[in-house]
């Protein structure tokens, strides 16, 4: 177990290190970062001042040390557009993104578990076809287009739900649904196949012979074991939700990290983009590390591999 944790943590740390090097080098190899940080109309004095302030005259290793030191202390520079520290912008937006991802997570569980179970139990019937069809569609529809379709239907045509911003609970429905739909599709398919495998096994036959109700056989015995295959990929699903969240936030004007990133791209606000990418990637890498460790803790087969 310890060896497993050390290995996985080492991998995650290495991934983060590589990411920071890439971010650091990409900026410096393509020219002076001071040029990227300055607005296009800045004068030469401003450039020299900034170069001195940022220490771009020092060797690369020293520069990298300074870069990491700044990030470790939560100082990400100032936004070019709003002139406010990027750290403030991020601490305003991050909770909103987490709320959206949490809501999507709830929707994913509420929809994909019943769909997966239904399609496995009623294998070969129209119910199975319907559930599998939803799953196949979910992997082919880009989340941001799904968001637009929902807005067209529920905001423009029916006028039931608000299309942008945060506010009441109704603001969550469409963004969380579009964000979760891709994952719903993936989990439904996975759950269906692993449930079908489980239903064939000896312990299910035994449970039936014992005279348990069909409900108990499926929801308690079969589902529990099938969920293992879903939990294994938990880290990947969270990473998917975080990156897809960027797109969904743009569609629904959700005041989160993704929208911040989008505005950063549009206004070529480099400090913002750099910080959001670095932080989101760090969150993705650490959550998938935690999911993996939790999973290894629960299932001895993994850590003994």
């Amino acid at each position, binding site marked *: 177990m310890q060896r497993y944790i050390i290995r996985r943590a080492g*991998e995650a740390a290495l991934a983060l290190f590589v990411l920071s090097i890439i971010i650091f080098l990409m900026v410096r190899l393509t020219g002076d970062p001071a040029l990227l940080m300055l607005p296009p109309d800045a004068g030469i004095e401003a450039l020299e001042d900034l170069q001195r302030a940022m220490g771009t005259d020092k060797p690369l290793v020293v520069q990298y040390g300074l870069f990491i030191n700044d990030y470790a202390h939560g100082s990400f520079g100032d936004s070019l557009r709003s002139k406010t520290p990027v750290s403030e912008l991020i601490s305003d937006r991050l909770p909103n993104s987490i709320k959206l991802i949490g809501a999507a997570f709830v929707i994913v569980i509420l929809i994909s578990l019943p769909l997966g179970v239904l399609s496995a139990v009623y294998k070969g019937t129209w119910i199975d076809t319907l559930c599998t069809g939803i799953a196949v569609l979910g992997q082919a529809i880009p989340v941001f287009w799904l968001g637009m379709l929902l807005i067209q239907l529920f905001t423009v045509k029916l006028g039931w739900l608000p299309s942008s911003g945060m506010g009441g609970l109704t603001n969550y429905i469409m963004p969380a649904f579009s964000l979760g739909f891709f994952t719903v599709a993936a989990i439904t398919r996975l759950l269906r196949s692993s449930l079908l495998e489980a239903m064939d096994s000896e312990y299910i036959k035994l449970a039936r012979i014992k005279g348990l109700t069909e409900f108990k056989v499926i929801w308690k015995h079969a589902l529990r074991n099938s969920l293992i295959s879903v939990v294994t990929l938990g880290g990947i699903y969270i990473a998917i939700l975080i990156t897809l969240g960027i797109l969904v936030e743009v569609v629904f004007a959700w005041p989160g990290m993704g929208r911040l990133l989008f505005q950063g791209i549009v206004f070529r606000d480099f400090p913002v983009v750099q910080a959001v990418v670095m932080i989101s*990637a760090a969150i*993705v890498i650490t959550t998938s590390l935690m999911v993996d460790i939790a999973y290894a803790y629960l299932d001895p087969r993994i850590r003994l591999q």
Partner: protein
Amino acid sequence: MAVVVDNAAIQAVQISVWKKAFISLKGAPLIPLFIIVVFILSAILADLITFHDAHKVSLPNRLIPPFWQDGGTFSHPLGTDPLGRDVLTRIIYGTRVSVIIAGAALTIGGGFGTLVGLTAGFYGGKVDTLLMRLADITLAFPLILFAILLVMVIGPSMMNVIVAISLVLWARYARVIRGEVLGLMQRDFIARARVSGASDWRIMMRHLLPNVMPTLIVLLTLQVGWVIIVEASLSFLGAGIPPPTPAWGSMLADGREYVSTAWWVTTAPGIAIMLVVLAFNLSGDWLRERLDPKQRSI
């Protein structure tokens, strides 16, 4: 006489090949295959089958609805976008971007990943450990974030999108191919090839590669859809194909502000993405059933 017999034999073989091809098409997902053919043909023939300029801005003609709605005309069957460009024309030209990016990224990323997988599985030991750690680290990278960063620094272009996707794509191939190769290395024909003096390179290319081909083809087909969606997502965020090149993702971005007033600007490219991705996914599933029985459960 002998010649005649030979010819007959050859003919018999040829017939059976054609028959086999026909039989193997039975149960094939014909509609998805048809969509794929149309998709690729539109990319090749875009200049011949469109009547409008995909780039020409014409503000008097902006936001004309599709032909079945009031105010629509047959000259713009799917309407026009906020800059007065024909939506259908841009969708047809948009196939080019998707075909080029999917083709290039899968060739570069898939090719490199296959090579890494073959090397890791063949040599094993430290080489294997090192290469697979590298693959795991790459897989831990959130692709879209990485691509956005790349584009921010070097500027948006088709080349950068291809580079960004390939840089992450290889790891999947390396992992899967390496797993297959590990199994093959235990087999007799590899030992025999070695005994007969085949070089490492020759064993990898002539003996291992053909055996992992079915897996590779399935993986490639299944990932076309994924690459198309990633490209569309990047273009949607303004970090993909720069305007005015018609790409499905940027068409969706152009229409985002008009979702409530001009639904057709975003609906048409959305449907195009969905159909093509669906077609490749379904064909990939079918290929997997046919070529790779081992992976059926996945």
